[in-house]
């Protein structure tokens, strides 16, 4: 999207639009990486609901998939998972 330079190019009032990655690839902020053990996953979708960055998507069969380009590694999904199917592993490991 073109960045406005003068007030003539700007809207009447500030507004922001939904944009993927407006802050860049926030996945680089991550210290701990969530790893899903699909053999334990019950496809309950709680991780998808709780992910504050919408970095988890649902596949056609409702199993979760993590977008590591934007996942910041907050660990909320691992905390919420009722069957402990998500482990948080240090990035360098």
């Amino acid at each position, binding site marked *: *999207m073109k960045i406005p330079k*003068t*007030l003539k190019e*700007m*809207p*009447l*009032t*500030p*507004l*922001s*639009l*939904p*944009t993927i990655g407006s802050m860049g690839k926030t996945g680089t902020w991550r210290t701990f990486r969530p790893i899903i053990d699909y053999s334990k996953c019950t496809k309950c979708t709680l991780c998808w609901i709780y992910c504050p960055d919408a970095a988890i998507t649902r596949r056609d069969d409702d199993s979760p998939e993590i977008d590591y380009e934007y996942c910041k590694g907050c660990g909320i999904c691992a905390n919420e998972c009722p069957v402990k199917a998500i482990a948080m592993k240090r990035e360098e490991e």
Partner: protein
Amino acid sequence: MKSVEQKVLALNGDEAVAYAVKQCDVDVVAAYPITPQTIIVERFSEYVANGEVETAFVCTESEHSALTACLAASLTGARAFTASASAGLALMHEMLFVTSGCRAPVVMAIANRALSAPINIHGDQSDTMAQRDSGWIQIYAENAQEVYDSVIQAFRIAEHPEVLLPAMVCLDGFQLSHSVENVNVLPDDVVKKFVGVRQFPKVLTHEGKLAPLRLDPHNPMTLGPLAFPNYYFEFKRQQEEAMKKALEVIRQVHNEYAEISGRSYGDGLLDPYHLEDAEIATVCLGSTAGTVKAVVDELRSEGVKAGLLRIRAFRPLPVEGIRKALENVKAVAVMDRSMSFGGHGGAVFHEVRHALYDSDKRPFIVNYIYGLGGRDTSPMQVRAIYKDLQEIVQKGHVETPIKYVGLRE
């Protein structure tokens, strides 16, 4: 064009507001009661209860919330109205700026009342004068008829795509809010057609298509986000531009309404009375003009060239109009129904004097503070002001630039 046939109702100023709002196809009214505004939302809630309107009526827990609800409704595209006064308006202070900054055309009636302390429920213009820099259009009415007419016009002005600013219609507490007058009202369908349906400027969405500037789940956008030092200033400058455009829009809407109703108030911005050949003149806002006009009539019958300039639109201020109207007058008395503590005179005085600075023929200009806390201002006192002006013209200088009318000194 012949004006539309109208019926006459006995309404006080507050009821005139409520009746006008009933006819303006308003979607949301959110309000909190405060004297002397209470009758407005009381009457309107009766219209809602009787099923005479399809408006969502929201009783909020404070004026801050009332205006916030109106702002939010307005941002979704609804037509929103509220009313307040005095401490209620003061509590809205923060949201007044948010509303104008979001360019939400909310319309609000203010039954002007004094601010505490000491606590006082009676009329003066301290409340709206304190909010004159909040980015709202301010229209001051002289009588209940003009209150009715101004509310209808206010929706058209505020929602005009080149304006998109919130608007206040100000009526003097008790003198107008609680005094019953004959008010000519237009038929419902005529008002509905005049006010029309809200129009929206278009903005580019995240998908690159044009959509109305409003909150809509199909075209998601956030309104009212951050704008840091790199953008904030430009948004504020655009509000000033909108105010400039409002000058012309107020005039246009007023003239169009005059064709339908047969009623006009000067050019919609300024309402002069016997000013063409006046040597001495007063400037005032609101209901006081009624008293002043009676005095001008008396003085004229005695051969005194007295005149009056009533400022109807105080925001935006018609600076050029004020200069043209007053530059050939020899002495001008500006009447302020509020104080600007520590300033040199009242707010109206500041601005009228400022407008005249660029004139080659600067008249003498003095200030009269009057009517605070609902104190009555009599025709005798207004006559004394004109007498002062005659003396200033005779002597050729001003002795006391700021005076207080009816104050026990």
